[in-house]
């Protein structure tokens, strides 16, 4: 019996203590509720209110109009922006999942010794000691027309012309995203895998399962909380990004947020707010979808 179940059964048995326990837990969540209300709830509410406002060149005008939403939903560009952002999110999700799962698998099941495991795991985080921006921007001279990679390819005689698609392209954006976000996949999956009882793998082997069958039927299902958490990180990060897409595509591609930023820069807050509200709803739905597939809370309490 886990401690939570134990506590739950205690509560059921002792109604007199129930009140105290309930009150205590309210107090326990209170600081978090206060922080979330103050720094997330209220600002979000302001954004919601402003999204119904009217505006002129430099003022937002209190009103209750649906124009901002009507414009958002009737313009083809909205669809294209979301299609673009979702495309990036899916591609990056697939690649980081593949990488993250394999790296975590290697760390947990192939590396012997806890010290080595932790050492290699820390090694994965070393690039994170520098800023996101530097790590991303360093790709630019590497992938450029006269960059190191193109020079190497031409030097080795693989290509005669520099490859132009390497930089300021969707390719460059995906490279930067994968580089920046893979660790967000590795960490939760590593954590989930580390909790798998090794004897289960032995049992699978004894029962005649091959390596791949063990991975697919034992390790994968048991790592699903990690996969779900990693997916939430990666997908929300990509959906909410504007900087990477702007820099690595050289402004050739747009994301929902970069378009929103253009509106903010032109002081057009109400349409930007409407766009933000829709964005929050869509990303929340995506996260809810993931959580519906994997009940993270239940699995973590396992």
């Amino acid at each position, binding site marked *: 019996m886990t401690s939570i179940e134990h506590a739950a059964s205690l509560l059921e048995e002792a109604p007199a203590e129930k009140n105290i326990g309930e009150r205590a837990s309210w107090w326990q969540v209170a600081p978090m509720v206060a922080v979330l209300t103050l720094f997330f709830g209220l600002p979000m509410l302001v954004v919601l209110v402003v999204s119904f406002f009217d505006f002129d*060149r*430099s*003022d937002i005008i209190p009103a209750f109009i649906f124009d901002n939403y009507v414009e958002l939903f009737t*313009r*083809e*560009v909205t669809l*294209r*922006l979301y299609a*673009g952002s979702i495309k990036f999110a899916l591609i990056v999700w697939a690649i980081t999942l593949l990488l993250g799962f394999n790296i975590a698998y290697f760390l947990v099941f192939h590396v012997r010794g806890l010290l080595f495991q932790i050492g290699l795991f820390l090694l994965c985080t070393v690039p994170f000691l520098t800023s996101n921006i530097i790590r991303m921007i360093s790709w*630019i*001279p590497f992938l*450029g*027309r*006269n*960059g190191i990679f193109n020079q190497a390819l031409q030097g080795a005689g693989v290509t005669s012309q520099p490859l*132009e698609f390497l*930089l*300021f392209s969707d390719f460059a954006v995906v490279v930067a995203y994968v580089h920046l976000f893979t660790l967000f996949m590795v960490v939760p999956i590593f954590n989930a895998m580390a909790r798998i009882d090794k004897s289960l793998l032995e049992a699978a082997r004894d029962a005649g399962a091959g390596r791949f069958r063990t991975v697919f039927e034992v390790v994968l299902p048991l790592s699903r909380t990690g996969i779900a958490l990693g997916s939430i990180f990666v997908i929300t990060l990509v959906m909410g990004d504007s900087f990477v897409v*702007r*820099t690595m595509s*050289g*402004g*050739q*591609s*747009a994301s929902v947020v*970069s*378009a929103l930023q*253009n*509106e*903010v*820069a*032109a*002081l*057009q807050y109400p349409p930007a707010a409407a766009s933000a509200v829709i964005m929050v709803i869509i990303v929340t739905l995506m996260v809810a979808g993931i959580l519906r597939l994997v009940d993270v809370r239940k699995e973590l309490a396992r």
Partner: protein
Amino acid sequence: MKRINRRLVLKGAAAGGAIAATEAVTGFPTVWAQNAKDITLVHAGGSYAAIKEIGDQASKDLGFKVVMQAITDDVQLNRSLTQPNTIDINNIDSTKLPYLAGKGVLASIPVEKYKLWGETVPLFTKGSYPNGQMASTQGLAPIEAMFYEAKDGKKLAGKPTEFLTMIPTIYNADTLGIRPDLVGGRDKITSWKDLLDPKYKGKTALVDYAPIGVMDVAMALESRGDFKYADKGNMTKEEIDKTIKIMIDLKKGGHFRSFWSTFDQSVNLMASGEVVVQSMWSPAVTAVRSRNIDCYYVPLKEGYRGWFVGLAPMAHLSGLKLDCAYEYMNWFNSGWQGGFIAKQGYYSAVPATAKKFLTPEEWDYWYDGKAAAVDIKDPYGALMEKKGTTRDGGAIWDRMGNIACWNTVMDEDRYLTRRWNEFVSS
């Protein structure tokens, strides 16, 4: 020198006496230097203009403190509108005026408070070049931006009045930057239409900012003969549509290598050879050249895109602080700043004062377009141009006297932002 005089006067006052001069004599308010030393003015502007050294020099010369804050354009607009009290002197470029004028955040400046108005170049005072010819009024021309109708600062007048929107400080003429070594020579690009030449497919860039990006393409389209705009600086919806449509086709055809949003990006695009022709700021061209890479700010036959910047006191200033603000604005154009900024390639609104703070060789190079008689250094003493080079485009009025269009905010800016987002996402 005026600057020294004023300083001495202030010092004299600090010694115990009030300034004897009254408004009637000098056009200056009476400033109690004893109190003025506790005053701090916050000067906020773009990093190209709100330079720390200038603030330090002003503090030294004036006896009160000037704090420079370099901020980005959108932050500046936001702070000006929502927290106007956090800024005292707003160093705005002309395109911020349509957002801020009449909002009650900027104070108008009575002409008599600004002593150097008479010596200011006629571009700002009359809207004309020194030869008397009127300057282009496409976009937001100086004559349209410099004056309020009345003291209340509610509306721009569009013609000379007694109330200034701002003290004009620096201005320049923008054009395309090119890599002569990669396009086959400086003379290979002579017109804005070369920006769209299929020869340079995949090797061009624009600034990632709708009002300027679209205007640069409009210059190119007009010179290519696609169509003629009534006012490139204030397009109609149809004109925006026509322009954006061509831009989308160009983008899909891979004509643009990149769109840059920061100074550094534009420098790196050019220096790395990703791009051989692009819209660019003049100090960015210099930054590329300082890496020993040939880069040229090419004079084009259709003319330049002009811009100008000024200082506007904020409406919350009053009493002694307002007096100090006027002091400071008068100091600003009294020479030191003009000399400093000339070495970055910008012109002063009162060139005669800047001249006193430049060596004759520097003046000849920067303002008169003559070949440099000595090595030309930047304001910090680093080598900028070797002896013998000539400034691109020549003398001040060869460049500033040939403005095709001024940086602006269009009436249809809302529509423009929308269409620009469609262009970027196409």
